[in-house]
C-alpha cells in the first residue's frame, strides 16, 4: 500500500513538474475588460455645431457648406486633398511591376469594371462634388464633400448619377448643423455599396453594420461595445489607417487586431504560436455575408437580352437579382465559408493596358505570399469570379462605357451594344480598340476582415486539422498536423501493426492449441 502510494506521489510529481516546465505566458487577466472600459467612453464633440452662426443659414450649393466648414477648420482641406478618398490613386511599388500610380481612377475590377467614362454614376462615392469626368478640378478645396463622412444627422445622401453631388432632397442647413465624427452609417453608405448594391463587393461590409448584433460583429454590436469604423481605422490629418488589396499593393498603413489585442492574446501558448502563420481573421471570422448575400460570380457575357425591346431583370428564389439585361447574370451567396490564401501584405494588380492570357482566368488582383515567406500569414478571402469583356486582338481588358449620360454616347446600359460601348470606353481611356471583343474569365481576391464573430463561434481546431474536407484542404506547400501524412509511412506503419497483431494472434493461438493438445494427450 505504502509503495503504491509512493508511486502515485512520484507520478503526480512528474506530471506536476511537466506542467511547470511547459512554456506559459503571464497573461493579463483582464485585457478585454480594460479595452471595454477604454471604449465605453464615447468621443463627444467639444462644440455644438448647431450654435454656429456660419451654419445657421440656408445653403444654395453644397460648396457653400464646405466654404463654411473651412472658415474654422483651416488647413483641413489640404489634408483631405492628400487622402485617397479624394485622389482615388496612390503611388505604390508593385512587385514585378515597379512603381505605379494605382487607384479607383485607373484600376479595373470585375464588377462594374472601372470608372473611366462612367464617372457620373461611379463617382457618387467620391469624397467630392462634381467629379463627372477626368477634367475634374482636384485642386479646388470647395469641391470637397465634408458631409458624406461627417454628417451625423443621418439625412445626407448623394444623388444617383450626380457625380458626387448631394441629392436634391437633402436639407444642407440641417446637415451642416449636425456634423461630427464619422459614424458607421457614413462609412458603410459607400463602402458597403460598392459594385452597385448592398454587400456586392466585400461580403463583410454591408448595411447590417449600421446597427449590428453581437453575432454579426462582436466589436460594433450596437448592444455591445458599439465601436465605430473609425475606432480601428484611426486617422491622422485625414489620412485614414487601413486599405484594401483590391487596390493596394504595399504592406503599409494596415489596421491590425494586435494594436488592441497584443501579439499574444490567447492564454494558450499553442494558439499564440498559430499567430506566426495564421491571421486573427482566419479563425475569428468563420463565416461572411452573415446577413445579406454577396456577389460571387458576375457573367457580363449574357448581358443585353431584351424583352419587347426593353431591358428586364430576373430574381432568384431568395429575391436577389440573378439576371439584369444591363449587367448580365449573377450568382450570390450568403453565410459563406471564406477561401484561404497566403498573404504577406503585398499584392499585384491588373491595370488598364496590361496584357492578358485568355487561356486561363486572369487574376485582376493577386495576393502574394507562401508558407516560407516570413511575413506571410493565412488569411480568409472572398473570391469573386467574372466573365468580362476584353479586346481579342490587342489582348487586354476593355474598359467599356456603361453609363449613359446623353443619347448616342455609347453607354451600354442604354444602347446594349458592346461594340459601341467598347469604342467609346477605350477612346476615353486613351487606348486603341481593335473592333473585336470577347469575354474572359477573371478573378478578384477580397480579404475578409470585418464581422468578427463572438468567441464561441471561432473556427474549431478540427475544421483545419482534419484529414479531409478541412477549411485549408486546398492550401498546399506546408505540413499541417492532422491533415497531412506520408502515405508511405502510414502504409508501412499500418502494415507493421497488422503484422504484429496477426503475429500475436497466430503465435498465441498456436500456443493455446498445442497446450490443449498436450493436456488432452496426458
Amino acid at each position, binding site marked *: 500500500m505504502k509503495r503504491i502510494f509512493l508511486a502515485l506521489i512520484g507520478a503526480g510529481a512528474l506530471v506536476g513538474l*511537466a506542467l511547470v516546465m511547459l512554456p506559459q505566458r503571464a497573461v493579463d487577466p483582464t485585457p478585454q475588460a480594460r479595452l471595454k472600459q477604454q471604449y465605453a467612453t464615447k468621443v463627444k464633440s467639444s462644440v455644438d455645431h448647431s450654435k454656429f452662426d456660419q451654419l445657421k443659414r440656408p445653403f444654395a450649393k453644397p460648396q457653400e457648406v464646405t466654404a463654411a466648414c473651412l472658415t474654422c477648420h483651416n488647413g483641413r482641406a489640404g489634408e483631405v486633398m492628400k487622402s485617397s478618398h479624394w485622389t482615388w490613386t496612390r503611388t505604390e511599388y508593385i512587385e514585378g511591376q515597379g512603381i505605379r500610380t494605382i487607384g479607383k481612377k485607373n484600376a479595373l475590377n470585375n464588377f462594374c469594371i472601372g470608372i473611366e467614362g462612367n464617372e457620373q454614376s461611379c463617382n457618387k462615392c467620391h469624397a467630392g462634388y462634381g467629379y463627372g469626368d477626368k477634367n475634374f478640378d482636384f485642386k479646388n478645396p470647395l469641391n470637397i464633400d465634408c458631409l458624406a463622412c461627417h454628417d451625423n444627422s443621418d439625412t445626407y445622401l448623394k444623388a444617383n448619377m450626380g457625380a458626387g453631388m448631394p441629392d436634391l432632397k437633402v436639407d444642407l442647413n440641417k446637415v451642416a448643423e449636425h456634423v461630427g465624427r464619422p459614424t458607421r452609417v457614413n462609412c458603410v453608405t459607400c463602402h458597403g455599396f460598392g459594385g452597385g448594391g448592398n454587400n456586392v463587393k466585400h461580403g463583410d461590409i454591408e448595411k447590417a453594420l449600421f446597427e449590428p448584433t453581437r453575432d454579426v460583429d462582436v466589436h460594433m454590436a450596437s448592444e455591445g461595445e458599439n465601436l465605430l469604423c473609425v475606432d480601428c481605422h484611426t486617422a491622422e490629418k485625414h489620412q485614414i489607417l487601413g486599405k484594401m488589396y483590391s487596390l493596394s499593393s504595399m504592406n503599409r498603413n494596415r489596421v491590425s487586431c494586435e494594436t488592441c489585442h497584443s501579439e499574444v492574446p490567447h492564454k494558450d501558448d499553442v494558439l499564440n504560436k498559430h499567430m506566426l502563420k495564421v491571421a486573427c481573421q482566419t479563425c475569428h471570422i468563420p463565416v461572411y455575408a452573415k446577413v445579406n448575400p454577396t456577389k460571387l460570380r458576375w457573367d457580363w457575357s449574357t448581358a443585353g437580352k431584351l424583352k419587347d425591346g426593353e431591358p428586364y431583370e430576373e430574381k432568384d428564389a431568395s429575391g436577389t437579382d440573378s439576371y439584369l439585361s444591363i449587367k448580365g447574370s449573377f450568382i450570390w451567396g450568403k453565410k459563406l465559408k471564406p477561401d484561404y490564401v497566403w498573404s504577406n501584405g503585398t499584392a499585384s494588380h491588373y491595370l488598364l493596358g496590361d496584357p492578358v492570357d485568355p487561356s486561363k482566368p486572369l487574376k485582376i488582383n493577386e495576393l502574394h505570399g507562401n508558407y516560407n515567406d516570413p511575413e506571410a500569414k493565412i488569411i480568409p478571402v472572398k473570391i469573386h469570379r467574372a466573365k468580362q469583356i476584353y479586346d481579342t486582338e490587342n489582348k487586354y481588358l476593355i474598359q467599356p462605357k456603361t453609363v449613359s449620360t446623353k443619347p448616342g454616347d455609347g453607354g451600354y446600359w442604354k444602347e446594349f451594344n458592346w461594340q459601341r460601348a467598347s469604342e467609346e470606353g477605350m477612346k476615353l481611356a486613351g487606348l486603341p480598340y481593335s473592333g473585336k471583343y470577347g469575354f474572359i474569365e477573371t478573378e478578384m481576391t477580397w480579404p475578409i476582415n470585418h464581422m468578427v464573430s463572438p468567441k464561441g463561434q471561432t473556427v474549431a481546431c478540427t475544421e483545419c486539422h482534419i484529414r479531409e474536407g478541412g477549411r485549408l484542404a486546398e492550401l498546399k506547400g506546408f505540413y499541417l498536423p492532422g491533415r497531412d501524412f506520408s502515405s508511405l509511412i502510414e502504409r508501412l506503419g499500418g502494415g507493421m501493426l497488422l503484422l504484429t497483431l496477426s503475429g500475436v494472434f497466430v503465435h498465441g493461438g498456436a500456443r493455446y492449441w498445442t497446450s490443449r493438445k498436450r493436456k488432452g494427450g496426458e
Partner: protein
Amino acid sequence: MRKEYVYQAFERFWHWTQAALILFLGVTGFEIHGTFHFFGYAQAVHFHNIAAIAFLILIAFAIFWHFSTGEWRQYIPTLTNLRAQGEYYVLGIFRNSPHPLKKSVLSKLNPLQKLVYAGLKLLVIPVIALSGLLYMFYRYPQRYEVIALRIESLRTIALIHTAGAFLLVAFFIAHLYLITTGRTLTSNLKAMLTGFEELENEPNHAPEERSQP
C-alpha cells in the same frame, strides 16, 4: 525454486509510468495525427505536450538510475544464445520446453530482449523524443528570425515522429503479448508489479544478497 527480488522499486515505478505515458502519448498523438477523435483536438495537443515533458523528465531519472546502479549493463546486446532464444519462441514454447536461459537478478533479460530493448532505448526513444522536441520548438518561418537551427519544414520532423510512433505502438502490442510467455502466463506481470519472481536455482551464481527496501 526461490523467490528473488528482481525489479527494484524505482525500476517498477519507471516501467509502469513509462507504460502509461507511452499509451497516453500514443492515443493523444494519433488523435493529433488525425487518425481518430477522442479527447478533442485542442485537449489532445495540450495533454500530449504535458505528457511529453513528463516523459522527458522520467527518461532523465531513468538514465541516472541505469548508470548509478550499473543496470545499464543488462541491456548490452549479445549474440550468444540469441539463436537458442529465437528457437524457443518459434518451437520450444509450443512443446512446453523450459526457457533456454535461466533468469537471474544479474541477468534479467534474454538475448532477444537485450537486443530489442537496446534498440528501443538507443534508437526509437531518442528519435521520437528528439523529433518531438523539435516539433515542439520548431520555428515557423517568421519575422525577426534568429536562425540557429535551420529546419526547412515541419514535414520532416513530423514524419520521423510519426514513424517512431508506429514503431512504439508495434512494440507495445508485442510487449503486451510477451508478458504471457514467462514461466507461467502471469509470472512476468506479477514480477513487474511486486518486484518478486520465482526463479530457478542457478548453479553458476550464488543467490544475491540484497536487502529489501
